[in-house]
């Protein structure tokens, strides 16, 4: 996605919560955040060393650029990126449809 702080830069993060979810944040100004409509919450896998939603808050879906599916280089890191949510980062309450 395009960085909300620097539009010239693209950053790569994991989607932790979608609109309507309530999650517990790490180091954000509010302890619990309900992701607003049309936004998502992204976090880097390396908590504490990542410039992600815990720094700039939920990001608008319009900033999404693409989904990363594979690592191509270096060759010893060839792999398919697994879409997996770390269990400790699950949303607290999902909006019921």
């Amino acid at each position, binding site marked *: 996605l395009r960085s909300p702080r*620097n539009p010239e830069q693209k950053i790569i993060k994991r989607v932790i919560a979608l609109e309507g979810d309530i999650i517990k944040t790490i180091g954000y100004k509010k302890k619990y955040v309900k992701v607003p409509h049309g*936004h998502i919450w992204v976090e880097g896998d390396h908590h504490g060393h990542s410039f992600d939603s815990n720094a700039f808050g939920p990001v*608008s879906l*319009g*900033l999404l650029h693409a989904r990363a599916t594979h690592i191509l280089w270096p060759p010893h890191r060839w792999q398919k990126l697994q879409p997996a949510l770390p269990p400790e980062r699950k949303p607290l309450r999902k909006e019921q449809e």
Partner: protein
Amino acid sequence: MLRNALGKAFRFLGYTVQYGCIAHCAFEYLGGIVVCSGPSMEPTIQNSDIVFSENLSRHFYCIRKGDIVIVKSPNDPKSNICKRVIGLEGDKVCTSNPSDFLKSHSYVPKGHVWLEGDNLRNSTDSRYYGPVPYGLIRGRIWLKIWPLNDFGFLRASPNGHRFLDD
């Protein structure tokens, strides 16, 4: 006979793909025609006006204060909104309504812009949803082509008092 028809079909397909790619690149990087709807930019842009937009300014990062831009809606990524840039990053903007007695100001955060419609009384803009990330800007409107009696470059903002000079 069949080979002739097949050859023609493939050539037609080839041309379609070529023109499709050129059209896509043109709309993505150069600009296009936009039909505006809604009352939030009156009197500068009325409902159902047709305007020309260009995307070069956003790619070269030269959107300026006072430009009218088309932006992906922060709350609904599938729809576009058309507003005027009142403040760029670092500018001081007035976040309160004109009717409020106490005026509140804030600074536009880095990487964001503050948008307001020209029709201040009937416009949901940054006063409602806050500063908008620059990355959501799709293009800049520079020419109105319909209605013909109002053809031409767009006027400056009727709300000059909203632009706060440092």
